[in-house]
């Protein structure tokens, strides 16, 4: 079997090393591109122009930032725990990095095709929370500690709906192999069958990435950057790189498991170029949504965040798992899934609306303003 990176047989270890090198290179470039893209897109939302002085259209802004960050002094507070503090960025960075291994970028273009790819992905991508807590604890800074604790609470809460919504996908595909999951969507992408699971997944990934409106651990206006507050230079840039890399891998995962990956809508026979455009477009939609949310939605409060996960998202995704099981056992038509999913979405919206209304701590107070002509 010849599945080497270069198309010809080389030493297994060399092959693995080459693949790892490829991830590092591609991931860095993509993360820098995402940073540039986010700045440009946010600038458009805010009627600014964004970076424009470095290179054509400011394209080299990320490079300039990287050079600046690498050149900065790597500070460590005296009171910080040296090991915890210095290792924390790696604990954030490496798990995300490992997440790349199982992702199906294009047909047969991946690092390793794992039989339990989805499970592996979930397992490694949730490890990075250890790094957040380490950074929070090791910095010996109270803002950082609050941020780290918030991150831990948030990750535990949102991991569950995230995994449960992926479980429904695995049930439909009958496999944990991401290639099988993509190919299972050759006719209908799972987002059409599992709209509720998709929305739950999207919300949970926002929380998982600590993106707004769930950027509570780093909440700039409260805990001033949370766990990162004491970091500078290269270590800080590793956190940032990790953040954008996780945005990228989650967007690729979303494209693969919900939007039909490289196979939907026209099958896999149009060559790699077509697949690349397709994947870029699908993950691009996801990334754009994430940026859009950031530009327009305020941050939730920690208690609202927790109760939203435990009281709303988790029960609904459990119901979704039940419904999929029911449909599969009794071999009902797929349309049933869509109908149930849309119903579930409506339930999600209405429950969310009621939760928002009841989180107002004044009972039944009429929200009207008088204008008083005295």
């Amino acid at each position: 079997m010849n599945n080497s990176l270069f198309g010809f047989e080389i030493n297994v270890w060399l092959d693995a090393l080459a693949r790892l090198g490829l991830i590092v290179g591609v991931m860095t470039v993509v993360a820098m591109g995402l940073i540039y893209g986010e700045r440009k897109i946010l600038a458009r939302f805010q009627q600014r122009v964004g970076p424009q002085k470095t290179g054509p259209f400011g394209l080299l802004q990320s490079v300039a930032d990287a050079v600046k960050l690498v050149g900065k002094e790597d500070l460590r507070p005296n009171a910080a725990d040296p090991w915890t503090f210095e290792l924390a960025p790696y604990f954030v960075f490496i798990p995300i990095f490992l997440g790349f291994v199982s992702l199906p970028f294009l047909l047969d273009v991946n690092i390793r095709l794992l039989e339990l790819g989805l499970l592996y992905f979930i397992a490694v991508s949730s490890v990075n929370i250890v790094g957040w807590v380490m950074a929070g604890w090791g910095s010996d800074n109270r803002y950082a500690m609050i941020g780290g604790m918030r991150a831990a609470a948030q990750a535990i809460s949102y991991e569950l709906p995230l995994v449960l919504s992926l479980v429904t996908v695995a049930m439909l595909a009958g496999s944990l192999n991401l290639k099988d999951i993509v190919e299972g969507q050759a006719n209908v992408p799972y987002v059409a069958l599992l709209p509720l699971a998709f929305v739950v997944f999207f919300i949970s990934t926002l929380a998982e990435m600590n993106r707004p409106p769930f950027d509570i651990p780093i909440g700039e206006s409260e805990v001033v950057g949370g766990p990162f507050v004491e970091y500078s230079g290269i270590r800080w840039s590793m956190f940032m790189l990790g953040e954008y890399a996780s945005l990228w891998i989650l967007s690729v995962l979303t494209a693969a498991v919900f939007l039909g990956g490289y196979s939907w809508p026209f099958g896999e026979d149009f060559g790699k170029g077509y697949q690349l455009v397709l994947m870029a477009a699908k993950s691009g939609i996801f990334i754009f949504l994430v940026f859009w949310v950031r530009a327009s939605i305020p941050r939730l409060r920690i208690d609202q965040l927790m109760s939203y996960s435990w009281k709303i998202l988790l029960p609904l995704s459990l119901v979704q798992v039940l419904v999929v099981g029911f449909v599969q056992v009794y071999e009902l038509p797929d349309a049933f899934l869509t109908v149930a999913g849309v119903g579930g979405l409506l339930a999600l919206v209405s429950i969310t609306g009621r939760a928002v209304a009841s989180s107002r701590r004044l009972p039944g107070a009429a929200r009207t303003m008088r204008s008083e002509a005295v």
Partner: protein
Amino acid sequence: MVASPQHEFETQDLLINVGPQHPSTHGVFRMVLTIDGEVVKDVVPYIGYLHRGAEKLCETMDFRQGSGFMDRTEYLAAHNAELSYVMAVEALAGLEVPERAQWIRMILCELNRLSSHFMFLGAFGIDVGVFGTPFIYAWREREAIIDLFEEISGDRMMYAYFRPGGLAWDVPLNFKERVREVLKSTRQGIKDFDELLTQNEIFRARTEGVGTISAEDAIDWGMSGPSIRASGVPLDVRREEPYLKYADVDWDVITGENGDVFDRYYCRLLEMRESVKIIEQCLERLESGIIVPDKMPRMLRAAPGEVYIRTEAPRGEYGIYMVSKGGNRPYRLKVRSACLSNLQALRQMSVDQYVADAILVLGSIDIVLSEVDR
């Protein structure tokens, strides 16, 4: 039966120092929060980082210099601060301000209220955690107003345009058209904020029912301005003791009902619409004429005596208590700062709220530290 443990876990409240360098303290302000988990148990504000002895300094300045110096105490609403000072001088010196100067003063004060409230909306948007968008929107509208001020007075923040007796010089010939132009964009800006923040469910969930203060408490703390009107007290100096021409125009005092963060925000937003209404009426009634009294003395001397003049600045009652013993400068000057009084209620409003809410409460009373500390 399992024996109950001898020692329960001991928990300790955490002290965190918010400020003097913190993105959400709106200046050099420090508050020490005692927190139990995420709940604020105590707040101790420390003020005075920006104390420059402004009141004492004013004793060394003649009236012309003093009105210019007042800008520095309230840099976001400098016209309003100047107004109190020059009105105090006029009361002591017995100067009659010409009609035209009064209308122009009124237009500029209301425009300054608009620009100051825009500043509040933008900063508050950041406090709630929207990444920059409301801030830039607010900045855009504020910029238009500030440009107008620059055309009139030659300066963007420190105008020194109101002089005892009238104005420094007359407004440009195209004044009316320019103000109408600015009002057009302002109206659109207010609408934008209504759509971006007021109608946002997360924003409502974050602000409603948070940091409430009752009307009685608000009166006891000596609050004023939108912060007290949000609690339902229709206290507005423009209505209570009409100065300039406020009795001659038609406008409403906006009051809230619950005295929570949302009401304080929304009162300001609605108040901006009233300001636009006032300015439009002023423009219609503005006629040509003189801008300083004919018999303006070359060296302005005030009669011995004392006077307290209060006006409605964007943040509340901005009062000047001036003692004169004759001569061309005040013997003693005391500024009654609205922000200082409003800030006193901070502890009562933020205790037993979440940390994130304490930040919102601080943001919602819209302090300007240079006015608090003077």
